[in-house]
């Protein structure tokens, strides 16, 4: 890897920032190309995302989804797996929550429904990831292809269920009935109101707390436990893992289950936290955004949080921008997302040789302290 010879702060600081800057510059050129002012557009976006309480609420709500989806991609990457199936896992995770709520919302209080919903989204998401994981581990099929296929299968399954089974009788649009209030995750503005703080209404709900817990937990799991150690061993060097008595198949399946579970929480945030009913397409591409978030955040929980916040700003700001400037649509954000994946992922080390040249021009290359014989 070309950056291996560079100091850590350049590799994990300068280069990622440079990559994002490149993505944003190209985005700016696109905005300019369609005849708008990129700087004015940026100002509208930042103001729309961070300038007032409702905007901040939306930004954080999006960031919550991106954190779950980003962590899902990140943990799989550490085991050397590319989980493109976050979208489908989120969809099915949401289905799990929805089914539990539809079945039990009138029977149980919120204190029980909340953990049940959490569990259901994790289990359904994990199950949807477990099949591709098993097929990769034991049957040798490529997880990238199978997870893509499972996204489409999930979409078909959901259409079938919503149109034929779960639709609220007498309704035209394929939606389930709304859950009882006990099956709603409290909104943050509601929770703040309980302690006397007033905050503007937004879809932001207590899922964000769970996202923070997941970040901490995942960081500890990957770098501070023996399971995480085994996971990283498999990701870096499967033969060394076998040597060390690790069963790569088990690690692959477990890791993908955790990954799918995390993606499933996107479904929880949407179904239990925002819509309070099952409907179609509630994942809205968040699973794919998770790929950009993870790559941009270098598969590290802190990086994922930072990248999620940036994408939260982009999504909320983009919505605001589309509202304010008729010539620009929300899909601009999707374009930026693609550019971020391109520059932070596929071309991650494009700038490294130049950075190295500048760095060593400023600071002469030292004799390596450790000589490779």
């Amino acid at each position, binding site marked *: 890897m070309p950056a*291996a*010879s560079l100091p850590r702060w350049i590799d994990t600081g300068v280069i990622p920032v440079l990559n994002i800057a490149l993505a944003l510059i190209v985005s700016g050129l696109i905005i300019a190309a369609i005849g708008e002012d990129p700087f004015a557009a940026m100002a509208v976006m930042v103001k729309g995302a961070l300038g007032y309480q409702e905007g901040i609420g939306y930004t954080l709500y999006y960031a919550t989804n991106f954190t779950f989806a980003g962590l899902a991609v990140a943990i799989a990457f550490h085991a050397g797996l590319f989980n493109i199936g976050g979208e489908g896992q989120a969809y099915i995770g949401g289905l799990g929550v929805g089914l539990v709520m539809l079945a039990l919302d009138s029977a149980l209080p919120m204190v029980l429904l909340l953990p049940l919903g959490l569990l259901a989204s994790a289990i359904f998401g994990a199950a949807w990831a477990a099949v591709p994981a098993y097929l990769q581990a034991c049957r040798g099929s490529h997880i990238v292809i199978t997870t893509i296929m499972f996204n489409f299968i999930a979409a078909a399954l959901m259409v079938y269920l919503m149109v034929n089974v779960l639709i609220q009788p007498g309704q035209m649009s394929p939606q389930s009935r709304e859950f009882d209030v006990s099956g709603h995750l409290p909104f943050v503005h509601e929770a703040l109101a309980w302690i006397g703080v007033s905050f503007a209404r937004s879809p932001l709900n207590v899922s964000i707390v769970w996202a923070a817990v997941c970040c901490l937990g995942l960081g*500890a799991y990957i770098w*501070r*436990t*023996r399971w995480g*150690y*085994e996971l*990283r*061993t498999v990701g*870096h*060097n499967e*033969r*060394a893992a*076998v*040597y*060390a*008595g*690790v*069963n790569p198949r088990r690690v692959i399946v477990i890791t993908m289950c955790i990954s799918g579970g995390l993606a499933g929480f996107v479904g929880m945030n949407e179904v239990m936290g925002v819509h309070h009913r099952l409907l179609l397409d509630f994942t809205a591409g968040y699973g794919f955004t998770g790929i950009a978030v993870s790559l941009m955040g270098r598969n590290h929980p802190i990086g994922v949080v930072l990248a999620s916040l940036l994408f939260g700003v982009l999504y909320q700001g983009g919505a605001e921008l589309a509202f304010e400037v008729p010539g620009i649509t929300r899909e601009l954000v999707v374009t930026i997302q693609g550019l971020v994946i391109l520059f932070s992922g596929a071309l991650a080390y494009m700038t490294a040789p130049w950075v190295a040249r500048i760095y060593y021009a400023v600071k002469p290359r030292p*004799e*390596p*302290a*450790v*000589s*490779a*014989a």
Partner: protein
Amino acid sequence: MTTDADSATKKRAAGQSAPPPAIEFHGISKSFGPVRANHDVSMTIAAGCIHGIVGENGAGKSTLMSILYGFYEADRGEIKVAGQAVNITSPDRAIAAGIGMVHQHFMLVDTFTVLENIILGAERGLLLADSIAAAGEELKRLEAEYDLYVDPEAVIQDLPVGALQRVEILKALYRGAKILILDEPTGVLTPQETDQLFRILQALKAQGGTVILITHKLREIMAITDTVSVMRHGRVVADKITAETSEAELAELMVGRKIRSGLKRTDVAVGKVALRVRHLTVRDAYRVPRVDDVSFEIRTHEIVGIAGVSGNGQSELLEVLAGILPVAGGGFEIAGRRIMPDDPCDPAQLRTLGLAHVPEDRQRLGMVAEFSAKESAILGYQNEPLYQDGIMFNQAAIAEKCAALMARFDVRPPLPAVLSANFSGGNQQKLILARELDRAPDVLLVGQPTRGVDIGAVEFIHRQLIDMRDQGCAILLVSVELEEIMALSDRILVMFEGRIVAELPAVDADERTLGLMMANAAAATA
């Protein structure tokens, strides 16, 4: 430095008009980052002769040949082919200059036929049909000329290695190579195949071709080459006429000092059986037995060395005993536990039974290059209670352990946070040994303990292994270095085509007898 070879060239040329040398290197230098692979290398190879290049692993032989073949570009220096200065920047330039190369790892497309592999890159015209027809004719001619038969329609993945090598040679000849480079060609060959290869090389020479043979096997140098260059640490240290030198002299030149006859070691009475192997069989993915009905035992206070040409099942034997490969037949017993085909045991369980394993391929098996040293220092022992603190790792204990291991085995630099990949080969190996020896295992499997390790570390590592044996450890040693086997072992087993074909006490072994047993298994067992 080149005077010997120059005089050789002159002698050869006496009485006839002197053709220019086939190859001349002048002051070739090449570095990979901080590693100097070639340093001011000059060498002259006369036309129409077989020239050997010997040296230890990492001496820079392969790098020099890769430069000649245009795979790498030299940082400095000049190459002349047949007296003409050439600028070989890519393999196609080398091919155009009449140079062909048989790589150590064959460069063949497994799913292609022999014929398709041969014409790849040397097709005639845009359509395959023409090339195939023309190549068929040409192959028949080459076959007859060099006694080089391979079925042109056979698919590569179905062929044995000996045939693959013939395909590689045919590839080079088909491209009109006048100069053929062979990089460690006999490591994977049976003695018969080696003999056949040497006949082919002689035929090439008889037709006026030049052969460059890279090897670390001195016997082969003596057997077939006319002239030889010795490389050490990226430099040429001697050029000799083969007839005027000896294995002993070359060996000394290679290593840079006299080979010591053996380590100082005390005689210790062996104890009880620590590892019992009975009719053990291992099969590869194609169901071919790699370890074939092998039986032996190792006692405490004993080092048993496995000698053999690499690729005769030694690696598979180590890996099956370590629990990495499954047992296909027979089994083995350690600490009262029998491991059989229907009662397998994974590497983690075997460790708890008192087995430790220093793998042959330390980069790919023994450590994780991307891990810090302290993380690599617990590889295989990550579940030990010592390293746990509830469900979390005890980071302090891990760092402390790594520092202790580094101190005990003099790993430099003694910094647990440094990336494993950034240590030199010798220090990586010392760290792995430290890790594996730390639990005072009852049985230790060691593969190529000093491969790619600097001379200073070799003695240290040998000393540690002897100490372990003195303390009662039963050690199984696999090495391609016969001297290492002879210096360390109490008993030597010779492996050939997956079987143990001979066993002898180390005191009775000398390089010649062992070499004979390794090379000519049938005669040795008879």
